[in-house]
């Protein structure tokens, strides 16, 4: 939903990820971009160029933080050092909300640097929700958890992924970063109806949407973020906007990154679907 507690009551439009190949263009040309998403861990450093670039960007643009390594779903407790650095960054960026993934990725202090799916059980949901609450209380900023794309499912799961996501966010009282491309990729890999997923998550908790491209292999789809958004994902995005409203949307393009203009133009295609939905909603209300 637009302007809700999970996105800090903001009304952000279409954003793109802040990526190294685009730094020079952005700093030199100051293009009009509604907001940038940064990967928190890339800026949780002690000094140097990354922070210099970030501070320059912050002078002119709105920035939202997106993390990849809090690992709410990992069995171990939250990493205090990681949280301290994250909080320092939150204060620096003044991000209106912070997102990270509904996943695990570390065991006994060893990191996979991946976003691994969890078994969808009530016990796991409770454990994960507890960690989200603890993180939010420490960081003092709304949190949205993102559904990941996945390539494996567990025998132990007791519910569908969307039921699990719903359970976690209700227990944690947090928001959802609804990644439409991830839903599509997972739906193909696991054989479920992606629209059932979209229809059955708590829409009022959606603080942000992600769209992205993916790669098709012979027996599975891989969430590579290195292509334009495909038509089925755009259609799902339109449906998502119909359900959740005009919500901050971000295009992810993280590999084989083309020019800034190409990425930005791809992101702005989302406006077509947003505007169509807004027009349809206005007509329905009239």
């Amino acid at each position: 939903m637009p302007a809700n507690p999970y996105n800090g009551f903001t009304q952000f439009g279409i954003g793109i990820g802040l990526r190294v190949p685009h730094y020079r263009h952005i700093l030199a040309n100051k293009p009009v971009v509604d907001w940038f998403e940064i990967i928190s861990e890339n800026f949780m450093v002690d000094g140097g160029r990354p922070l210099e670039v970030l501070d320059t960007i912050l002078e002119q643009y709105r920035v939202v933080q997106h993390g990849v390594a809090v690992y709410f779903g990992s069995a171990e407790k939250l990493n205090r050092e990681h949280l301290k650095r994250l909080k320092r960054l939150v204060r620096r960026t003044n991000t209106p909300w912070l997102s990270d993934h509904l996943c695990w990725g570390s065991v006994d202090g060893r990191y996979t640097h991946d976003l691994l799916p969890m078994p969808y059980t009530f016990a796991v949901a409770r454990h994960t929700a507890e960690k989200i609450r603890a993180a939010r209380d420490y960081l003092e900023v709304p949190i949205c958890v993102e559904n990941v794309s996945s390539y494996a499912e567990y025998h132990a799961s007791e519910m569908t992924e969307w039921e699990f996501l719903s359970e976690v966010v209700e227990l944690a009282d947090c928001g959802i970063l609804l990644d439409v491309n991830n839903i599509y990729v997972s739906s193909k890999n696991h054989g479920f109806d992606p629209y059932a997923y979209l229809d059955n998550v708590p829409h009022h908790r959606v603080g942000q949407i992600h769209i992205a491209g993916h790669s098709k292999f012979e027996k599975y789809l891989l969430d590579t973020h290195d292509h334009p958004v495909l038509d089925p994902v755009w259609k799902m995005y339109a449906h998502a906007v119909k359900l959740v409203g005009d919500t901050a949307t971000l295009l992810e393009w993280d590999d084989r990154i083309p020019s800034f203009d190409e990425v930005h133009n791809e992101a702005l295609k989302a406006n077509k679907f947003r505007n169509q939905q807004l027009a349809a909603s206005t007509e329905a209300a009239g």
Partner: protein
Amino acid sequence: MQKRWTDGTRMRELAAAFIKPNDRLSSFERLEIYNRQYWFRVLDCLWEDYPGLRAIVGPRKFMKLLTAYLANYPSNSYTLRDLGSRLEQFLRQEPQWSAPREELALDMVRFEWAQVVAFDGPSKPPLTPDDILDTPPSKLRLGLQPYLSLLELRYAVDEFLFAVKKRESDILRGEASNAFDSAPKAAKRQKRIRWPKPEKVHLGVHRLDNMLYYKRLEPEAFAILAALGSGATVEVACSEAVAASQRTDIDWPAQIKKWFENWSALGWFCRRGK
């Protein structure tokens, strides 16, 4: 993926015990997707960060070296930036991976890690002349910026790495260019980069205005900085470096003054301690 788990169980059986197959992929194949992605991700990261080491051992052996390194030292940090932090330690423990150029490889790994530190390591406010005005050299202790690495090396790895990067850049331009006349030749037709001869080299790896630099240091300059970094007073650091020097034709007071002016301008000095 390894064929068996630590308890001897076959991985296919282990995967089947907790992962569901689907109509296209077995449990093992679904787990294998994650396995492959893990190795792509971490190997790609180290490939990018250690081009010099890669050139020394060769690309094929480099991949095997990295695989062995990561098996022994899996990532223990939330950031990929720290992935190579124990590579020097690993090469010292298992020198066979860099044979027959073990010393050169160690120098290069230290140099390449120092660049990671210089890129985004912490910094402290640099000292100003006012900060040290009232303290005589016999009592003055100076801190060195945390992002600064002082390296005493057995080879000119800075020149070697420069040549490696230039060659890679030339190859890239050649692939991008359609100008047949001017495009650089393909890699295998290019001259091999000469191995550096053993040569004592002292480097300061640092950053200035958030740009990465490495600066050759004279032996006495290195000795002074190293002593300062260890907590020696300015007087002790300078007098010991001069006493140990073989050179007799230098106006040491003038030379040391010039060095300190240069290092101050580079912002290398800060308060000692936290």
